[in-house]
């Protein structure tokens, strides 16, 4: 497991130096290009704010009212059998539907649970191991006029679920 922690520790420093160095080697104007990308990063951050507000408020209302506990009690027999903490459930529901929404759910979990708690780490890994399957389906198939996606949604969702499960097992293994 030590190589995994070494990878995690050195991934960012290596990128901070490695990417500009390689860029310079390939004759990219590194600083100007960096500024261009950074501007895009800022624009995207601002664009997701309304989505963050909408989803984080709805989640807060749902949790503080006690509704979340009710739902958690209803479905906990199912999730407990698989080993998922009930807190993670909203993420599993929103993840295939909305990128910005899932980011909001994860931000909410990191805030209420702490990023270095088990649930915080699990939410982080889940977010990175799955995708906005329905969005990709809608946009990609929609763009060429395909109306019958056949088995693609099933396979996509099954892969998302495999991502959730493997995130859970890997987190138990690494951080459990």
């Amino acid at each position, binding site marked *: 497991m030590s190589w995994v922690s070494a990878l995690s*520790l050195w991934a*960012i420093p290596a990128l901070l130096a490695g990417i500009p160095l390689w860029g310079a080697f390939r004759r*990219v104007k590194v600083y100007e*290009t960096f500024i261009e990308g950074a501007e895009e990063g800022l624009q995207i951050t601002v664009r997701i704010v309304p989505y*963050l507000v909408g989803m984080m408020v709805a989640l807060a*209302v749902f949790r503080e009212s006690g509704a979340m506990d009710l739902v958690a009690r209803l479905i906990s027999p199912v999730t407990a059998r698989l080993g998922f903490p009930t807190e993670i459930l909203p993420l599993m529901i*929103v993840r295939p539907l909305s990128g910005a929404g899932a980011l909001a759910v994860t931000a909410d979990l990191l805030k209420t649970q702490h990023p270095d708690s088990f649930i*915080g780490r699990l939410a982080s890994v889940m977010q990175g191991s799955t995708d906005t399957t329905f969005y990709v389906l809608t946009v990609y198939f929609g763009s060429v006029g395909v109306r019958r996606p056949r088995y693609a949604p099933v396979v996509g969702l*099954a892969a998302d679920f495999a991502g959730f499960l*493997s995130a859970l097992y890997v987190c138990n293994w690494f951080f459990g």
Partner: protein
Amino acid sequence: MDRIGIREVAPVLNGIWLFLMVVGVAVAAHTGKAQAVTDAAFAAARLAIDTMIGLAGLNALWMGLMKIAERSGLMEGLAWLLRPLVRWLFPSVPRDHPAVGAILMNISANMLGLGSAATPMGLKAMQELQRLNDGDKETATEAMCTFLALNTSCITLIPGSIIALRAASGSANPAEIVGATLIASTFAGVVGILLDWLVRQSLRARGR
């Protein structure tokens, strides 16, 4: 898979959002938690802005670095490595068809978390795959289904936006999830590819 952006399916989310708000308030009425709900809603709205402020600088840093990576041909390098795999996964696509190039660039961009580069390439790949579709143009081909499976269950090399979010939330070691994400997303990717292959084979066996 880890792409910064909005990416959402609005119709279903209308229902989910309405459900969370209305059921939340209804339960609050029942449990007498109107004040707690009001406070929580206002606090969450502020928290969204705090999250944005924490994220803004990190997203800028990340996207800046990735723009350098993109310009210096990182995607092309990765695409070259992935070429044999993609040819094997898409037997119905001719070896040097433009679809192969577009699929490769899309998958490479996905693995690196380059959302803004991934989507245009994905749409180009879909166009090329549609050109190869000699059946009903409104029904997905096998290659399209494989492309979707590959796209939605792709390996994450560096989960940039999550590291940023963790750092913004006060993690002592924001990047500690890199190794775990790599392993978990690889597993999801293998399952996606395998399932796609299995379903395709069984449908073919039944002559569909």
